[in-house]
């Protein structure tokens, strides 16, 4: 499993790097045009610094979080860094991925992002993708769905979350200076978050 977790992170990194310009262009519309560049730099460092052979999923995620903290540079550094580090606590000492742990990790990531960014749902942030996705994931899991099927549904919810961010004004971060003018643009953070979830789903599907 450990190698798989590293491989999954690598797939996430590749997805982020592939979408660097797309994410930066989204951020150019309402932010400071650095989301893609920053995230790509961070995940490039993750691929290089995380030990592919470490069997402990918690260790791998913690190292990922610490690396993002020191290499991303913008607000997504402490936000994603905290999310991965909080998720790492749920997986501490574990070498297998269970649905309940994944759900716990998503919830821990949300709590971490909220603590760091002082944001709520509906403020045009990554939470507008992550929170509905986590809710749907939990519901599907409770109904007995497999992790992959639950993630499939979660990704649909995350994409709906992206669409929702187009309809609202930002109240957090640089985009908040634009106020109503930020309506019509999708949130870059919600987008990178959704790309992450989709990559995990595709990876687990194999």
């Amino acid at each position, binding site marked *: 499993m450990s190698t798989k977790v590293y491989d999954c992170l690598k797939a996430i990194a590749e997805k982020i790097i592939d979408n660097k310009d797309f994410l930066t262009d989204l951020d150019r519309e309402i932010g400071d045009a650095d989301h893609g560049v*920053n995230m790509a730099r961070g995940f490039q460092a993750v691929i290089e610094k995380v030990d592919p052979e470490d069997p402990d999923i918690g260790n791998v995620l913690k190292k990922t979080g610490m690396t993002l903290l020191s290499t991303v*540079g*913008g607000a997504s*550094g*402490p936000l994603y*860094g905290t999310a991965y580090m909080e998720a790492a606590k749920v997986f501490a000492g574990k070498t297998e991925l269970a649905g309940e742990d994944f759900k716990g990790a998503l919830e821990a990531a949300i709590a971490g992002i909220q603590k760091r960014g002082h944001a709520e749902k509906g403020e045009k942030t990554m939470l507008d993708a992550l929170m509905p996705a986590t809710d749907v994931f939990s519901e599907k899991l409770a109904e007995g769905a497999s992790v992959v099927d639950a993630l499939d549904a979660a990704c649909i919810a995350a994409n709906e979350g992206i669409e929702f961010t187009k309809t609202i004004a930002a109240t957090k971060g640089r985009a908040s200076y634009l106020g109503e003018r930020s309506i019509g643009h999708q949130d870059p953070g919600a987008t990178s978050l959704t790309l992450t979830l989709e990559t995990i789903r595709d990876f687990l599907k194999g």
Partner: protein
Amino acid sequence: MVGLVLVSHSAKIAEGLKDLTSEIAAAHKGIVAAGGMEDGSIGTDAIRISEAIRQANDGDGVVVLADLGSGVMSSETAIELLEDENIKVKLADAPIVEGTIAAAVSAMVGSDLEAVLKAAEDCRGVRKIPE
């Protein structure tokens, strides 16, 4: 003496502020600049900030002063990373230039952590041009 850590997205701002403070509060030796990224690019780095806090601490604690948005987020993260260590550390809600000068002067005359923090935060309400 209460140490100070200066956090800015720009290494030049943090270094320049340290230089300025060294002129005004020359006797304060515990001021550490933690601006920009390791490679000198624009950004903030929670790991570097936590190392700077360790370096600035001589036992009396540390006040961190940060600039915009993620400067604050990275500083809060840095402080959390040090949770298990016995360092008294506070993030000031203050304009970084004025707050740093006030904090440095306050620290230099032997104020404790809370008083240094207050000196920095009191700058929020100070007008530059009197009515």
